[in-house]
């Protein structure tokens, strides 16, 4: 019972993290059709900012958290301004490859300017404690991750539904041209979308640093690959799909970890992706995706 509860919490925490990152990808994709491979490097920028601030003498964890989220949002907006604006109206493949290029550049810059080796960051370790609820011992980090992810999603939904800019973002994901005809500035909508996407990545970065206690150049890359997979399962561009896909991915991974004998644990990754590919055979448009009919706006 204790073991099952622990694994359930594991699955929820992993799922929450994937959902956060996948949501960030989906917000940007739904508006401008950009498959943002550089999202992992936004997490990287956030993590390295905390590392540098700590190295320069920052001691307050609260400030570190704010810095992580702020730096990520700023990095996302900066990436858009520098790299993605020139290819904004280009075909999807062009944007995808540009983002892939940005990801390579930033990852290698971390390597070149800081170090290829892991750098220790202990400022957020305080988030990772054991809490005792009666008979259950739970990791504070996992509970926080779940709660914060839920809050972030609620906040995002409120923003998208209650504010003018949120309304503009939702409208832009349907038909950007008409939104611009209504007098909304395209740059503002897109910058806001990137800032949201970055902030979500920053929250994820906080939990990654707290869990691993170190930063590496490829810190966010693997996570973003998984978040992409979450987006594809959920239906690319669908926000609800991204959240559901992330959770599902968390459950598949932890489920495999529980089900697989110890010596086959290494195959977890391969099997996870295998299951997902099988899912796509059954539903190529993803769980919550819309089947594009011929004649619809091309996705």
């Amino acid at each position, binding site marked *: 019972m204790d073991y099952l509860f622990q694994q359930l919490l594991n699955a929820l925490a992993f799922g929450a993290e994937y959902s956060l990152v996948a949501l960030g990808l989906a917000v940007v994709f739904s508006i401008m059709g950009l498959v943002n491979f550089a999202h992992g490097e936004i997490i990287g920028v956030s993590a390295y900012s905390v590392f540098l601030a700590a190295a320069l003498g920052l001691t307050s964890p609260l400030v570190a958290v704010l810095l992580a989220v702020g730096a990520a949002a700023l990095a996302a907006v900066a990436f858009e301004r520098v790299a993605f604006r020139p290819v904004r109206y280009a075909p999807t493949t062009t944007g995808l490859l*540009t983002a892939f290029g940005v990801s390579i550049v930033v990852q290698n810059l971390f390597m*070149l300017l800081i170090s290829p080796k892991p750098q220790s960051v202990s400022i957020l370790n305080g988030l990772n404690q054991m809490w005792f609820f009666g008979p259950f011992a739970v990791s504070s980090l996992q509970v926080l991750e779940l709660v914060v992810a839920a809050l972030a999603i609620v906040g995002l939904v409120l923003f998208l539904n209650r504010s003018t800019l949120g309304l503009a973002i939702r409208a832009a994901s349907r038909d950007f041209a008409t939104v611009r005809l209504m007098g909304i500035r395209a740059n503002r909508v897109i910058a806001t979308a990137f800032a949201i996407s970055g902030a979500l990545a920053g929250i994820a970065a906080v939990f990654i640093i707290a869990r691993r206690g170190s930063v590496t150049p490829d810190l966010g890359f693997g996570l973003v690959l998984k978040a992409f997979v979450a987006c594809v399962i959920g239906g690319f561009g669908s926000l609800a799909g991204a959240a559901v896909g992330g959770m599902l991915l968390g459950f598949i991974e932890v489920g495999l970890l529980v089900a697989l004998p110890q010596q086959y644990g290494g195959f977890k*990754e391969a099997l996870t992706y295998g299951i997902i590919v099988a899912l796509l055979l059954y539903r190529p448009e993803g769980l919550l995706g819309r089947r594009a009919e011929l004649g619809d706006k091309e996705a």
Partner: protein
Amino acid sequence: MAHMEISASTSTAVATPSGPAKPVLRSLLGGLVTALPVLAIGLLILAFAPAYYTHLALAAFVNLIVVVGLQVFMGNGNIANLGHSAFVGIGAYGVAVLATPPAMKKLSIPDAPFGLADIALDPLTAALCALLAVGVVAAASGKVISRLSGVAATIVSLALLIIVHSVFLNWTDLFKGNQAFFGIPKVVGLPGIMAAAVVVIVLARLFKDSRWGLQLRASAQSPQAAAAVGVDAKRLRLVAWILSALICGLAGILYAYFAGTISPKLFYFQQIFMTLAMLILGGMATVTGAVTGVIVLSVGLEFIRSIESGVSIGGIQLPQLLGLSGVALGVVIVLSMAFRPSGICGRHELDEQLARFFRRAR
């Protein structure tokens, strides 16, 4: 759609000066013209260069085959493929497992399943079996990929890369995991790889100009219009995917046969980044673009690598700059995409450009 008409009209115009040549023959000749620079560079290196450069050239030729293979799917189908190194890896590990002599396997993979530790096929049979394995994996993955639209297909190609890599890493009884797999017979030299590169270039060109290639390119530019005239885009994507995979698999086989030692990390993101940057820089619409990108970036990267390892300029020793070549690759991709998305070569093959040039000169 406009591109289509332009390129179609130029290629018919190319034919007129030399009379009504057969289209297949024209593509064959065009492919050979494209392969000429490659052949020339190869022969020059073979004749004059020291051993160190021969080794570099071997690696560059393997990259060339991979990039041409990548072009077959990406250039014609216009879907980004980030998983082609999986097939390079399957080819290389295929021959490693099948062709390595049993005496070597006793040392490296004594517990291989299916009695594979005790057999060794001759290199050619092993290569054919490895290609068969590549074909089977490609057919299975292609079934999924060809059904998906652009973005999802790209992500699944990545998933394939990760699956294959993780099998190499974790099936230690068969693939030796993270350690290097050594003792593969070294049976291929520069002439063999050059010949393979020429064949592959011609093959890619024949496919591009074939009925299937033309239909696939049309469906990539306008899915609805192509579907309306009865083009089965899914089937064509599958065909291109399998052909592309086989070419990449061949590159892996050749690499294993000249290097003698392989490890999983050779067939992972590092290779994906490099080959992708080469194809994008040259221009993915043409086979000429693939060739050009490989030549330019191979030379450029070698130069950057010499700086990366720390050089002394005018007596001042520069420190090691790890990651510099990675930054350069990324910058190449980003700048090409921003300023010249069609790459150096644009939409026309080398022979088409030459024909236009000579017509203008007359």
